[in-house]
C-alpha cells in the first residue's frame, strides 16, 4: 500500500552552513551538556553471532575500547541517555540526539573527558549557523580551542537553527583526532523541526559507518545487535539516516515506501558520507521487518537490523 511520506530534510550537503539569516528574536535557547567519554568495552555484537547466517562471533572480534559522545545533565552533573525514550534500545553510539526548532539558539557545552587515549576532541556541526569560533574544526595556526579541546578542557559551541536548518544534520569530531574518533563512533545528529511542525511519536537514528572488520548501524553489527526499533500502528515515526566514513550506503526498509527528494515513491534511498535525510510516515503495517543497507557487501558485514511494529 502506498502512503504519503514526508521528506523532512534534503541532503545535508545542500544546506548553507555559516552565513545566513538571523533567527527571530523570540528564539528559544536550548542548552546541551556533552562530553567525550571512554567506552572501554564497546561491543559491536553483544549476542555474539550473525544470526541470519548462524555464524558465531567472538568477543575478540567485536569488543574494543573507544571514546564516545555522551549527554550529561547541566554542568556535566551526571550522564543521561543519549537517545530520547523510544528512539533506540541502545546508547552511546551515536552521540546525543540534539533536538531544536527553527529559530532556536543552541548552546552545546562540550567537555573532553577522554581519559582512555587522552586525545584532543571537538564537535563540528553541519546545517546550522555559527561563527568561526564555534566551527569545531582544527586548522593549524588558524583555528582556536573550539577545534582542539584538550583533555579536561571545555568549550561552548554557539549555534543557531535558521529556517534553512530544518531537518537532520550530522555532527562529529573535527579535532586532530578526527580520523580515529569517527572510526570509533564519535558522531551524532541534530534534529531540527520547522516552526509548528509536530514532533514524531518515534524518532529512529540510523548511522551507517564502518567499524573495524564490520559494517555497523549505530556502532553495532548484525540483526539483534543493531537497534531493534519498535512502534505501534497509528504512530508517526521518523527515520533519521546518516552515513559516516568513506562509503555510500542505500537505506532500505522492508514493507514500506516513502517519497524521495524528487517526489517519486521509493523504498531505498542513497546516503553518502556526512549526508543525512529524514523520512516520516504514519505506521500502518504491523509485523517484524528488516531495515538495512542494500549494498550487499555492507549488509553481509553487519548493516542490517529489525523494525518491529505492534498492532494497535
Amino acid at each position, binding site marked *: 500500500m502506498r502512503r504519503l511520506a514526508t521528506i523532512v530534510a534534503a541532503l545535508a550537503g545542500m544546506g548553507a552552513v555559516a552565513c545566513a539569516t538571523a533567527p527571530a528574536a523570540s528564539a528559544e535557547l536550548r542548552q546541551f551538556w556533552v562530553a567525550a567519554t571512554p567506552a572501554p568495552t564497546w561491543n559491536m555484537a553483544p549476542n555474539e*553471532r550473525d544470526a541470519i547466517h548462524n555464524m558465531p562471533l567472538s568477543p575478540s572480534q567485536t569488543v574494543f575500547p573507544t571514546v564516545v559522545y555522551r549527554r550529561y545533565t547541566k554542568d556535566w552533573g551526571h550522564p543521561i541517555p543519549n537517545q530520547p525514550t523510544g528512539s533506540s534500545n541502545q546508547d552511546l553510539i551515536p552521540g546525543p540526539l540534539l533536538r531544536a526548532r527553527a529559530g532556536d539558539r543552541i548552546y552545546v557545552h562540550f567537555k573532553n573527558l577522554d581519559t582512555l587515549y587522552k586525545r584532543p576532541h571537538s564537535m563540528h556541526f553541519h546545517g546550522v549557523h555559527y561563527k568561526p569560533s564555534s566551527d569545531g574544526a582544527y586548522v593549524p595556526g588558524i583555528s582556536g580551542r573550539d577545534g582542539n579541546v584538550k583533555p579536561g578542557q571545555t568549550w561552548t559551541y554557539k549555534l543557531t537553527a535558521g529556517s534553512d536548518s530544518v531537518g537532520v544534520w550530522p555532527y562529529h569530531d573535527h579535532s586532530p583526532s578526527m580520523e580515529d574518533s569517527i572510526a570509533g563512533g564519535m558522531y551524532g545528529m541534530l534534529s531540527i523541526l520547522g516552526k509548528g511542525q509536530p514532533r514524531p511519536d518515534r524518532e529512529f537514528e540510523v548511522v551507517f559507518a564502518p567499524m573495524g572488520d564490520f559494517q555497523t548501524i549505530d556502532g553495532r553489527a548484525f540483526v539483534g545487535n543493531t537497534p531493534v526499533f519498535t512502534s505501534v500502528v497509528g504512530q508517526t515515526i521518523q527515520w533519521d539516516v546518516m552515513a559516516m566514513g568513506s562509503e555510500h550506503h542505500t537505506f532500505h526498509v522492508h514493507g514500506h515506501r516513502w517519497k524521495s527528494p524528487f517526489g517519486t515513491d521509493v523504498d531505498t534511498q542513497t546516503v553518502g558520507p556526512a549526508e543525512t535525510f529524514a523520512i516520516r510516515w504514519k505506521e500502518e503495517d504491523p509485523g*517484524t521487518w528488516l531495515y538495512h543497507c542494500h549494498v550487499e557487501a555492507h549488509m553481509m558485514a553487519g548493516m542490517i537490523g529489525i523494525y518491529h511494529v505492534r498492532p494497535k
Partner: protein
Amino acid sequence: MRRLALAIGVAVGVLGGPGAAVAMDGPMGGMHGSGHDDAISIAFAAFAPTRVDVVAGDTVRWTNDSVRVHTVNAEDGSWASPRLPGTDTFAHTFDTPGSTTYYCVLHPFMRGEVDVHNVLLAAPTEPGAPGRSYTLRGRSALPAGQNVTLEADSGAGFQPAGSATVGADGSFATDVIPKTTATYRAVAGSDASPGVQLLVLNRKLATSAKTRGRKVSVAATVAPASMGSPVVLQLRLPLHFGWWPVARAKLDHHSMARFALKLAHRYPARVVLTLSDGATALATSRTFHVGPR
C-alpha cells in the same frame, strides 16, 4: 620499522584485560596504538621496571622521575644518554634481537635490562576458564602474513595450541581453549617468544531470582571468590536472536552481585561471569525464568 615499544610488564598493568594487553589490539587494528606507553621510570635509586621485553624495532623511552640526575648507558658502550635531570627523557631504538643490559654511570648499582625479540606474547592479566575461549595477543617484527604458532606447556612440554597470522601493524591474536593452567609461547620459525602463564580457574555461578509483579531481583554468587570480576545478567530475547545483556555488575567482597529490573513479560535468564571485556564468558549459571507469568 620503528615503533614505540610495548614494555609488556608495564602495559598490562596499566591497561588491564587481555583485550588491552597488547597495544595494537582489537578490531580497530593499529588505530589505537598510541594507547600503550613504553616508559621506563628512573626512580631515586632504581629503574622501574628493571627488565622489559620489546620487539625488534621498538623504541624504549626512559624518564627521570626522581630529584637526582641520572644517565642510561649500555653496558657494552654501544649507546648512552646525556645527563638527565629530573623530568628529562631519553629514547633508544632496539633493532636487533638479543639482551642488552644498561646502568646509570652516576649510580652504577642502578641496572636494567632490555630483552629484544622477533616475536613477543603478551602476558595474560586475568585467569581463564577450562574449556572457555581465551584470546592471546602478541606482536612481531616479522613481515605481515607470517604464520605464528602458539604452543602450550602444562607440564609435558610445549604442544601446539593455536596459530595466528601477523598483521600489517605487526600484531597477532588467536583464541586458545585452555584445559588447565599452562605456559604459552609464540613460535615463528627459529624465533620463540618468552613464555607467559595463563592461570585457569574453574569457577561456578549460583543464582537466585524473585519476581514480584514486574519487579525482578536476581542474586549471583561466584566460587571461588572473585571480588571485582564482572558479571552480566542476560535474557533470551527473540528480537535479539539469542542471549542479550540487560544488566551488569561487579562482584562485591562477598563475591556476590545483585540485579534489579522491571519486566513486562517472562523470559529465560542466566548470569555470566566474564573477563573484564564484559563479553568473554568464564562461567555461566543455569538458565532460570524471570518476569510476570
